[in-house]
């Protein structure tokens, strides 16, 4: 029994760390889907794009992948603003978000993936950094730095966003646009501009999320799709747009997935996220912290 207690402890701890990383992957969707009501199913594709940029910076210039992703933040922010502009002009303004807006993001997901396949092929790519490999040990519990660093980076990023949302004018305006667009307009603030900034931020998080993804596991263009079920399950369970809820839900999923992988085999992990999503939608669509 001692052996399996060991396994259990390690599965829970690395599940928590994995969950921190899932929070980084989800936080962009918590902004776009949770706050702005934009069903950006292409978000995982932007994350994979971030992974490849970190990969190029790492292999060609020997740069740290996470540092590279921070440098790439402004580019992702502008990309997000551009995508929102097209989305707004072509769909939101015409009131055609549901069918054609979804198809638009699906098309973006697909185009990004196929382009990455054409440029980089379908081989798995990985990066090199000093924290990939070693682990910290506390008794029987092992903390791989490969998971610990992404988790810390994720928490710093989400904490920073939380402070930005709570303390700055733009941040408060974003929270306001999530609640009532008309009221914002009556305050003489332009909801479209605020949403463009917010969507830019949501895509910017994909840069960092992509870098921590390629630190955690080797990346090939199609693995983004494995994350769609996860990110939306976490976003909904976390209460759609609550940052604290996103972190808690992400860690819960991380633990459940890791336990499944430890005791039933890793090939079942994708099914866990889907089960999570379906149960969430069927039982508690308002999320654990739902209003």
């Amino acid at each position, binding site marked *: 029994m001692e052996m399996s207690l060991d396994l259990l402890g390690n599965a829970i701890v690395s599940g928590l760390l994995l969950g921190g990383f899932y929070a980084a992957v989800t936080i962009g969707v918590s902004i776009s*889907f949770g706050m702005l009501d934009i*069903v950006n*199913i292409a978000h995982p594709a932007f994350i994979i794009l971030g992974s490849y940029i970190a990969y190029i910076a790492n292999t060609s210039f020997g740069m740290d992948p996470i540092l590279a992703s921070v440098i790439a933040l402004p580019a992702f922010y502008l990309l997000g603003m551009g995508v929102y502009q*097209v989305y707004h002009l*072509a*769909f939101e303004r*015409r009131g*055609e978000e*549901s*069918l*054609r807006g*979804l*198809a*638009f993001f*699906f*098309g*973006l997901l*697909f*185009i990004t*993936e*196929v*382009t990455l*396949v*054409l440029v980089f092929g379908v081989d798995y790519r990985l990066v090199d950094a000093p924290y990939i490999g070693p682990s910290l040990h506390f008794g029987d519990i092992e903390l791989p730095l490969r998971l610990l660093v992404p988790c810390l980076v994720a928490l710093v990023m989400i904490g920073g966003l939380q402070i930005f949302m709570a303390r700055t004018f733009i941040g408060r305006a974003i929270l306001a646009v999530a609640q009532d667009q008309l009221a914002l307009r009556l305050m003489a603030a332009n909801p479209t501009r605020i949403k463009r900034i917010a969507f830019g931020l949501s895509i910017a998080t994909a840069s960092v999320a992509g870098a921590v993804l390629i630190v955690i596991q080797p990346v090939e263009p*199609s693995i983004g*799709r*494995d994350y*769609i*079920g996860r990110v*939306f*399950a976490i976003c*909904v369970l976390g209460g759609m747009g609550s940052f604290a809820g996103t972190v808690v839900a992400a860690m819960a999923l991380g633990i459940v997935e890791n336990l499944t992988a430890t005791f039933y085999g890793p*090939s*079942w992990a*994708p*099914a866990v*996220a*889907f*089960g999570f*999503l*379906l149960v969430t*939608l*069927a039982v508690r*669509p308002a999320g654990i912290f739902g209003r």
Partner: protein
Amino acid sequence: MNGAKFVVLLLIVAAAVFGAALAIGNAYVFFAGYVVLQYIALATAWNILGGYTGYVNFGTAAFFALGAYTTVVLHKLTSLPLPIMMPIGGIVSGIVGLGTGYLTLRLRGSFFSIATLALAVVVQTLITNWDFVGGSRGAYIIRPMTTPLLGIDYIQYLFLVMLGLVVIVVATARAIERSRLGYGFATIRDDEVAAEASGVPTLRLKLLATTLSGAFMGMAGAPLPYYVTYLDPASGFSLAYAVNGVAMPLVGGTSSWLGPIIGAILLGTLQQVATVTISSALNLLIVGLMLVGFVIVAPNGILGLFGLGARRARA
């Protein structure tokens, strides 16, 4: 034109297509034609839910592959003829559609779409872990030596079976469009809250559309193992089905049964040509770009460009 006359016309067109393919007398025509027909069935099936009720299904590949894998199971356990296997595959996919719909269709439409995206990943995981159907290694299917119809090759037989399915799916789609059911679907698409308030049983109609659409996708997938003779999860769940299932109706036009057919013939033929002349990854990129281009520039698809999309105003 009433329903019976339309079916007769469809059968005449189908017979003419088969006759023309026979007259060309080249096996490649049947190989390529089968794929285009399969896409007509898939696109029309997608449109029953997507075009008529406005609910987007991204899981075409899952429903399609479920039909294909049902055939693999039946092939190993029984010696049923293909036309019997197809409805069974349809039932399996239909039940999965019903289940997914039951859990998610009560919520906003986007949740259903997200669930179908995740469904594709999960069904693929299940099949990959299921050794009986070959798991990740895939399954070999040996075609029967003879076809039930004398004098034609097996590929011609598959072509004919798929042609028959296309007639059934298109006739059903058109019948729905012109029935009370179709008007019910249209009210959901145009304003679901108003429909619900006026007493339209929206959940029941949505479940019906999801089940029917999923079932037809499963039927379209059922002959696949005999067509490819080797089926593995990567090819059965190919992203090509998911993206074409969405792109073809939207490019053709979702408001009428004709739209998905136009989209499927256009994109299906284009891909057949591009696969041979350029590369298969690049032709998927073309489909993706056309999808995004059409939803931005021509929201009513090719039908809309010719002014035929306005028929929905009457519905």
